[in-house]
């Protein structure tokens, strides 16, 4: 994946230009790390009752070179990383010192084991056990330091061939894992290193590792010691199984510890990478590195669940629509009449403004005054203004007829033939429904009827205002004051009608023998709320007719 990102190149160069400085820095910080690492692992060691020895060993630690030598493998890995980094020239500079630092950390962590093994192997058998995993490392080190007195250690150590191989296997596994882990980190984190290069290196590591004992100088050492080995190996033969076990467990620990380290390396690397590259998360998402591939069945299950949910939602929506005031209002074409009235009102307002602009300045004030007067005429009267007409309507008149009478009276001076029939018809229908109610009628049914009844009444009112406005505009002879008065009266009658409807519905609701009083109260509240809503729509429509009345006066 050749990254064309020039930033990466630059930073990579930067990283290499001052490697020493960075190295030093990282070493400093990594020492903290290794401290932690040691302390983390201390309890484990003390379990083996070696803590004292260990401390001794640490102090004594002949910080010679065994650490370095013992970790040849790591160095190889390190090199491998570095080469792989250099070859594709894509790695982010931050990684280099970091990974190195982390390897260092691992190394220092491992110093203990080296030292520990060295010191103990001469003391007693118990203590020699830990030597085993280190022995193979030791062997390489001995290759470089043949002077070191290792004879007895080597003597039996070599003899316990199987132990050695197990240990070696353990270590090599570790190494392989380390190298794999690092390469994984590299691959997933950056996606940069050339896989071929990595593969080559790791193969090399594989080859060299299990055979680390066989590396040429070591081999010669071993051969030298061969004769003296046999006795001690017999001596400790019965301990073999125990030793093997220990080695195995140590190996496991080593691996576990190594993996922990790797995890830390990985995490740290990612942190550093992300710090240096804020867009990394995006890139990762883009490359699909993060997406854990879902199983087909899972996808299908989810799809089905989604479909079911949608069906349910659709059904629920359908259901909800039945009691949704705004939806019903729309369905009864209240909304579209209101919209049309708004359009008309807007256009008339513009026309009035035009006339105002076109008028000579001395007349402009007059026009403004007239407009203001009309607006005042169209103000809603106070609530407590009892209409005397009310009294004159005969008591024995049916409710719809009474409504019709009131509407007629309110608009008798408007000079138009208005259509009240739809409103009357709808009111009659509502009343019939309420009368035909029986004990089987649920509160929900009443509620539904209330909401739809209010919505329809309001919609019809919208139509009434809209039609009245249209007819006023085509009327030959305008009489502004009468029109204003008539529409004001009409609004009063309609809002009263709405509240009367609401009262009738809520009375039915509250007298319902339902157990669920809370729900009844909820419904009653909602009915009054929608009634308030209806009145607002009606008053709003009335105000929209204002420019239509005004234009007749100017």
């Amino acid at each position: 994946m050749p990254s064309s990102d020039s930033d990466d190149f630059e930073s990579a160069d930067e990283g290499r230009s001052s490697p020493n400085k960075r190295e030093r820095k990282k070493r400093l910080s990594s020492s903290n790390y290794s401290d932690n690492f040691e302390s983390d692992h201390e309890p484990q060691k003390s379990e083996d009752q070696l803590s004292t020895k260990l401390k001794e060993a640490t102090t004594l630690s002949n910080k010679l070179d065994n650490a370095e030598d013992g970790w040849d493998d790591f160095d190889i890995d390190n090199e491998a990383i570095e080469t792989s980094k250099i070859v594709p020239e894509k790695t982010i500079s931050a990684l280099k010192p970091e990974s190195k630092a982390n390897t260092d950390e691992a190394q220092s962590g491992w110093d203990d084991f080296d030292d520990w093994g060295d010191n103990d192997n001469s003391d007693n058998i118990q203590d020699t056990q830990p030597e085993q995993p280190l022995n193979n490392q030791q062997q390489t080190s001995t290759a470089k330091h043949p002077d070191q007195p290792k004879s007895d250690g080597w003597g039996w150590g070599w003899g316990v061939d199987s132990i050695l191989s197990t240990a070696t296997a353990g270590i090599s596994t570790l190494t392989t894992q380390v190298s794999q882990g690092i390469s994984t980190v590299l691959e997933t984190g950056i996606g940069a290193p050339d896989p071929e290069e990595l593969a080559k290196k790791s193969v090399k590591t594989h080859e060299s590792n299990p055979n680390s004992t066989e590396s040429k100088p070591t081999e010669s050492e071993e051969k030298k010691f061969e004769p003296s080995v046999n006795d001690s190996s017999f001596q400790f033969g019965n301990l073999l199984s125990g030793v093997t076990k220990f080695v195995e467990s140590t190996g496991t620990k080593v691996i576990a510890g190594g993996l922990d380290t790797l995890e830390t390396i990985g995490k740290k690397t990612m942190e550093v990478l992300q710090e240096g590259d804020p867009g990394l998360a995006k890139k990762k998402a883009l490359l699909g590195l993060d997406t854990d591939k879902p199983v087909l069945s899972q996808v299908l299950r989810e799809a089905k669940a989604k479909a079911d949910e949608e069906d349910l939602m659709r059904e629920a929506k359908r259901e909800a629509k039945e009691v949704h005031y705004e939806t019903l209002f729309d369905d009864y074409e209240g909304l579209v009449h209101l919209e049309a009235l708004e359009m008309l009102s807007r256009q008339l307002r513009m026309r009035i403004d035009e006339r105002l602009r076109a008028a000579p300045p001395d007349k402009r004030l007059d026009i403004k005054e007239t407009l203001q007067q009309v607006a005042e005429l169209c103000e809603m009267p106070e609530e407590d203004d009892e209409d005397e007409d009310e009294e004159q309507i005969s008591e024995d008149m049916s409710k719809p007829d009474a409504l019709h009478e009131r509407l007629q009276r309110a608009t008798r001076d408007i000079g138009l033939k208005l259509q009240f029939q739809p409103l009357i018809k709808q009111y009659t229908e509502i009343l019939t429904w309420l009368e035909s109610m029986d004990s089987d009628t649920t509160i929900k049914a009443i509620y539904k009827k209330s909401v739809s009844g209010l919505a329809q009444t309001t919609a019809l009112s919208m139509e009434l205002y809209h039609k009245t406005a249209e007819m006023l505009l085509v009327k030959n002879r305008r009489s502004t004051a009468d029109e204003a008065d008539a529409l004001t009266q009409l609004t009063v009658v309609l809002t009263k009608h709405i509240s009367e409807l609401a009262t009738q519905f809520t009375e039915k609701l509250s007298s319902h023998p339902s157990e669920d009083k809370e729900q009844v109260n909820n419904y009653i509240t909602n009915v009054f709320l929608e009634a308030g809503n209806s009145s607002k729509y009606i008053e709003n429509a009335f105000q929209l007719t204002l420019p239509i009345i005004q234009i007749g006066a100017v």
Partner: protein
Amino acid sequence: MVDPIFDYQFRLILIGDSTVGKSSLLKYFTDGKFAELSDPTVGVDFFARIIEVQDGTRIKLQLWDTAGQERFRSITKSYYRNSVGALLVYDVCNRSSFEHIPLWMMEAKRHIEPHRPVFALVGCKVDLVGTDNKNGARREVSCEEARMFAEENGLHHVETSAKTGQNVEQAFILVAQEVYNRIQTGEYKVEDGWDGIKTGFNRPNGMDFNLLEAETVQSTCC
């Protein structure tokens, strides 16, 4: 008046001379009925019907039936703006109603601007043509010349009868499909402040969810 779920709402406007049969056409389309007698339209009336376009998308057609009478002309002009389609309606037995079509089209174009509506040329009352010449009904607009005019102006053309129902459905589906196609190609978009096209689920205030909750509560109680 149950209103099922729909995906889009298109607002179409019907324009043309008075008495060409706009209201009858709409009445048949929405009710399936033909009214022998009907009052002249005052200002604008509304009709609605849900149809399906080819891919099954449900479209609510909100139809604005304008008054053809001259005296309402200044009013009806106010209603053009929010339309995504316009049906130019003429009477095949009324020559002048066809001759006024270019004027209606210009007027619509001017008022719907900046939006470019889908136009359809719809001839009405084809049932009066032909068999029964005693009534004095005579075709005054040939199908060919109407088609030619339609082609020149890039319109769809269809001849209908609100009495027999011939082609009534097609006239509206034609326009709806064309509007829908233009949505698909991205030419038309749902826009705030323009009601030509609306999405169906965009109910005012979107209170459905509140109500859903209320419903659930209720069902657990009872």
